[in-house]
């Protein structure tokens, strides 16, 4: 696992120091995937460079399995770097080496002898599904394949943490899927802790267990993706849940209008129909929709209710585990 504690980093600029990271703390449990998201200029790259041990923070700690790596130098620093596999932003493969040669680079740095090195390279090429490209040069590979080789390289020396800096920024949606699948597989099969820095919410949607939202160098939201989504009011929910269009004309016909966030198979499948029959209310879907976060179905619906027991129905839905928010008509705050 990796913990980032109170990291600050500033850079000199024309108007004095610019604070890129302002007390950032994160923690990622072993075998989980944390997505760090945020607008450009939020400090994502600086954070990634600090975690990659390429940039030294002004203060704070970066602990991998308990050991602080920030102050290390020389040989100790090089050894520490092997604990963190990095998929850097942009094209980072050696163009004069084959795919296999690129994957072998960290093993050479670690002094792994030849035969063992070849076995390990073969395992990793298999993990990323590019065994048949072992002898190809980067220029003969597609962008997605190159990125998967970069992931294999990052994993070569058996790091406990995998850091990916904008791993999908240069890829089209189809290829993005193949790269994310490889990251997910690394977590599942090797048990590495994954930290993905990205501006792309679809990365969070597809592979992240946890998410941290960075803004102005601070973490403004940090938690389990499903918890934050179920909350409904979080930034994560705002960007991951299906959007709901405003339609006042249609909404005026109902006694109560509410946004309901449902997480999980049971909730999405059964909650609303059961509420209808239990409380004898008429319930109509006005908008929203269904999506998936990794394997979990998640829905946000705007519903209109008609019937005497509409408030009770909403309350019951909320007690059953759904988040019911923004009751647009009637008593405010039925359940937040």
């Amino acid at each position: 696992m990796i913990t980032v504690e109170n990291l600050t980093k500033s850079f000199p600029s024309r108007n004095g120091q610019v604070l890129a990271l302002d007390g950032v703390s994160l923690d990622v449990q072993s075998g989980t995937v944390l997505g760090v998201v945020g607008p450009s200029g939020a400090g994502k790259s600086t954070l990634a460079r600090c975690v990659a041990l390429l940039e030294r923070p002004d203060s704070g700690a970066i602990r991998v399995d308990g050991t602080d790596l920030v102050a290390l130098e020389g040989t100790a620093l090089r050894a520490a770097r092997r604990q963190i596999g990095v998929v850097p932003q942009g094209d980072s493969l050696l163009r004069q080496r084959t795919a296999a040669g690129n994957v072998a680079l960290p093993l050479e740095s670690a002094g792994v002898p030849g035969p063992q090195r070849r076995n390990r390279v073969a395992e990793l090429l298999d993990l990323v599904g590019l065994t048949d490209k072992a002898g190809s040069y980067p220029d003969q590979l597609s962008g997605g394949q190159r990125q998967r080789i970069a992931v294999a390289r990052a994993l070569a020396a058996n790091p406990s943490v995998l850091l990916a800096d904008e791993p999908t920024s240069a890829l089209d949606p189809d290829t993005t899927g193949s790269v994310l699948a490889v990251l997910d597989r690394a977590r599942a099969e090797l048990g590495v802790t994954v930290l993905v820095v990205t501006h792309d919410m679809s990365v969070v949607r597809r592979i992240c267990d946890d998410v941290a939202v960075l803004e102005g160098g601070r973490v403004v939201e940090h938690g389990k993706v499903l918890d934050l989504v179920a909350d409904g009011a979080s930034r994560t929910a705002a960007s991951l849940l299906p959007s709901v269009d405003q339609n006042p004309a249609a909404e005026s016909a109902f006694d109560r209008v509410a946004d309901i966030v449902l997480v999980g198979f049971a909730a999405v499948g059964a909650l609303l129909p059961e509420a209808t029959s239990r409380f004898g209310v008429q319930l109509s879907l006005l908008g929203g929709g269904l999506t998936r976060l990794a394997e979990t179905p998640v829905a946000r619906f705007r519903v209109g209710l008609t019937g005497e027991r509409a408030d009770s129905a909403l309350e019951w839905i909320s007690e059953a585990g759904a988040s019911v928010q923004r009751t647009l008509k009637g008593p405010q705050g039925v359940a937040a």
Partner: protein
Amino acid sequence: MRSATPWSVVFEDLAKATGETVYMVAVSTLIATLLGIPVGVWLQLTAPGGLRPRPWLHKILGFVVDLGRSMPFLILLVVLTSLTRLILSSSIGPTAAIVPLSVGSVPFVARLVQNILSEVHVAVVEAAVTTGASTLRIVRSVLLRESLPALINAIGVTAIALLGYSAMAGVLGGGGLGDLAVRLGYQRFNDRYLWSTVVVLAVLATLVQYGFNRAARGVDRRRHASV
């Protein structure tokens, strides 16, 4: 009017002079490469943003290199005569010419090398850094290996520049094709020497260029290289 020197004599002199020129250029290119590459690497490592930034050392080193490059070769030849005599206890002949030729081209090679190494993408170098590789390994496996085609081309450029300089050195007692062209061709109005020397020099330059181009392409694994 004297009758022209028979071609058989011209050819014999030409062969000897060509041998001397090839010897001078080959050895001095080799020495310039062996000394120039480390200096170029050093320049790049100490540069701001390099792997071992040392701004002051970089500035001083850069200044010395540029001083060396700004020195007209003819001056260097004269200035280095005593150094040559010190090393070889002679300042005459092709071997003696190798000293100023090598010394003169080390700064040239160093700058070329530094420029080439600075072209290796930061992301590629940093990726190697994050693998825990030592600076020495990064220099060898990343910086030098990634720029090998460009380095080979740069050595070719150096060799051709040295071919030109060797003619100058030749006139000042170094022997070789330059000496032949000036002493026998130009000063004695012997067109056969003059023009045949020019032809041989042109052929040598072309061959060197072709050879280095081939070699550079041969080691390049990027796709556009084979087109």
